[in-house]
């Protein structure tokens, strides 16, 4: 009698594990292509701590809507409320549940929940977006570093690595993140060719237009805001954003949580 059943199973199992594990180990250990052949684009904007100031004294409903439209257009954010094809119409609760928004407007008492409602600012259209916190809880909880903090302060999204666990959505105190609950492509009316769309199952959010900064352009919302949004490098004493913060009193959302958000509001 050769080997008995138990030994056979042991051997087969170990071989299978080695075979599968070997491939995996090879993937992890294998030398990659030389990555040294990369450099920043010539016109790229460089900064050490990007920040944004939203000047509510200059922002009205129409301009805010333009900012939202600009951002969503250049990032191919789907619009479930007004689909390009009547057949794709969705019931209203699905529209609100599956909504994807990178930047949007809210009233004061929703944007700043710890403050008492104030007559002066109650009806202003506060533009809310990812705050690119200096101490981001979403980055702390991501199990794959699909969302990570860059050296220039931007909290970036790697859609290729995201496993769709939505822990970052639970971690964000500002409700700034959206998930692709369905295929977004049919709901992008006008595809912007310079930026990809997303697939189902990944989280997305504002990235301070990192791809535009790398080409020397300002974020889309800043360009559309007609001066109401000021964007720049807070670490640079001479930048417009530093000057604005020196000149005006600003408030930020939920500062008591220790996230150190970098979107400031002039009210």
């Amino acid at each position, binding site marked *: 009698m050769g080997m008995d059943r138990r030994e056979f199973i042991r051997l087969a199992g170990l071989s299978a594990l080695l075979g599968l594990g070997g491939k995996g180990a090879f993937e992890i250990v294998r030398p990659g292509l030389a990555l040294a052949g990369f*450099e920043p684009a010539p016109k790229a904007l460089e900064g050490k701590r990007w920040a944004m100031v939203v000047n509510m004294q200059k922002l009205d409903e129409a301009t805010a809507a333009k900012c939202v439209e600009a951002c969503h257009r250049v990032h191919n954010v789907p619009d479930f409320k007004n689909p390009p094809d009547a057949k794709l119409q969705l019931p209203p609760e699905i529209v609100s549940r599956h909504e994807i928004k990178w930047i949007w407007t809210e009233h004061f008492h929703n944007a700043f929940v710890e403050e008492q409602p104030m007559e002066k600012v109650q009806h202003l259209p506060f533009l809310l977006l990812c705050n690119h916190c200096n101490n981001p809880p979403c980055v702390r909880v991501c199990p794959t570093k699909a969302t990570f903090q860059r050296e220039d302060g931007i909290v970036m999204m790697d859609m290729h690595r995201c496993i769709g666990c939505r822990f970052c959505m639970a971690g964000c105190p500002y409700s700034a993140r959206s998930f692709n609950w369905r295929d977004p492509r049919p709901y992008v009316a006008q595809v912007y060719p*310079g930026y*990809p769309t997303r697939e189902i199952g990944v989280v997305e959010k504002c990235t301070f237009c990192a791809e535009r900064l790398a080409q020397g352009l300002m974020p889309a919302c800043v360009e559309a805001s007609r001066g109401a949004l000021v964007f720049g490098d807070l670490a640079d004493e001479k930048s417009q954003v530093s000057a604005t913060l020196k000149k005006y009193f600003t408030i930020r959302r939920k500062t008591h949580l220790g996230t150190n958000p970098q979107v400031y509001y002039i009210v």
Partner: protein
Amino acid sequence: MAGNGYKNEFGVFGERPKVPKKLYDAKYVIGGLIVFFVIASFTLWPNLGKTIPAPQPKLETPVILKLKEADRKCVLPKAEIRATHMQMLVDWRETVVRSKEKGAVNGREFVAPDGKKYLASLTNTCMDCHSNKAEFCDTCHNYAAVTPNCWGCHLETGKKLAEAK
């Protein structure tokens, strides 16, 4: 685990009845193996006897035709790009998307071995010249039964980011 007193549901090991060694139930074993091989290979049956021609990717796109003969080269030499474009695109992706991550290589411009600089982007650089995905990319990919998962997100036609407003 031999011999003395090891017991399982078939009895004590050393006391099992001696049965002559031969292939029992030969009909079922051989028959089953034949059925298995037929089923396992059935995807090959429809192509028996046919010659599938090698893929002929078409390089003639408006952008490429506008270039001078001497300028018609890809970011890497032809043999290298053909063999390694999959890994190169993954490296581009990791570098561009994760640029400025702590400890990462920074930059979005790829410096080719011949010194020329290209924006590292599938849609904006590769698809700019090769704007005919169906006649270029897909011919080889279909032949090799490969489905790269880039196209679920990345668009097939691109314009340089700065031009598109």
